[in-house]
């Protein structure tokens, strides 16, 4: 399959505390995959707002992820808890217009496992492609 040719697009909002080299790593993957994925680094996942998620969907994203630090490991104490609530609110909103709540997904990174943001994104995209093929 053409790397840039899966057809679907994903937006990935993530806490930049997750990966110290996120700036380089995400740019390399964006360059490799083109419009397949767009990254949006946040100072903390708690900065996410339902409006960001809806705008991403409206702009054409088929799937929107919000990636947070492990539970209990937020650098700002409870940003990832807030992110969870905001996603839940946005999910209820898109359900009202008939979109599947799964279009918005919270990814809580596992504790103790150091992932770079591009590795994580590849995992998520591979899972998406697998889902499409199945």
């Amino acid at each position, binding site marked *: 399959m053409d790397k840039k040719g899966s057809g679907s697009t994903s937006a990935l909002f993530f806490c930049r505390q997750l990966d110290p080299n996120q700036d380089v790593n995400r740019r390399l993957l964006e360059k490799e995959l083109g419009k397949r994925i767009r990254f949006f680094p946040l100072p903390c996942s708690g900065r996410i*707002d*339902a*409006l960001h998620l*809806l*705008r991403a*969907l*409206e702009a054409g994203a088929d799937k929107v992820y919000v990636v947070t630090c492990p539970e209990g490991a937020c650098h700002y104490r409870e940003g990832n808890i807030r992110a969870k609530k905001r996603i839940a609110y946005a999910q209820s*909103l*898109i359900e*009202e*217009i*008939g*979109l599947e709540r799964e279009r918005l997904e919270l990814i809580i990174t596992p504790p103790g496992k150091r992932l770079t943001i591009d590795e994580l994104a590849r995992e998520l995209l591979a899972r998406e492609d697998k889902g499409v093929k199945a």
Partner: protein
Amino acid sequence: MITGERKPISEIKEMIAPYRKVLVVGCGSCVAECAAGGEKEVGLLSSALRMDAKAAGKELEVREMTLDRQCVYEFIDQLTDVVDQYDIVLSLACGAGVQAVAEVFPKVHIVPALNTTFLGETKEAGLWIENCRGCGDCKLGFFAAVCPVTRCAKGLFNGPCGGSRTDRCEVDPDVPCAWQLIVSRLEATGRLDLLRKVHPPADWSKQQGKGPRKIIREDQRT
């Protein structure tokens, strides 16, 4: 402040269904504070409506605007050169704001996106509580700034009903007994003697007995 909650999108869609160009107008005052009708909520609703229309194959143009206040002419006037370009105005203001805009633009279709709920206080982030009924005859001075009309489920003026349990209201255990609060505050501020006063029944004519109320201040008029 005046609080409100967004109507279900299905109800909003029904109201705007016959129209193709919608102006969504928020209000940056009370309903922005209660996260129902400010700029952000205008964006959320507009995005949702656009996506819904697209999914349904319907042509829909939605423009977003937010006024500082929708209940004051000087702010409403910002819509003057805009409203004529749209088939309908979807207002995220309180009922007063919706009606004020409607009065300024008599030929414009305007519908509410919110259900206006109560006069309240931001108790904590994400929690708003009703604490004023706008009865027109404020007696907070006698009751240690705790309104028995609003915060006592039975609206009692002359002491507690006796049904409270461990300072909670017997009608709703999530709510503190207003009379417990009144007595505690009067005691803490050395004003328990105020409880000796017997209050007659409230004069509800000051609230709704003569139709819609108005306030006239000649010194403020031009």
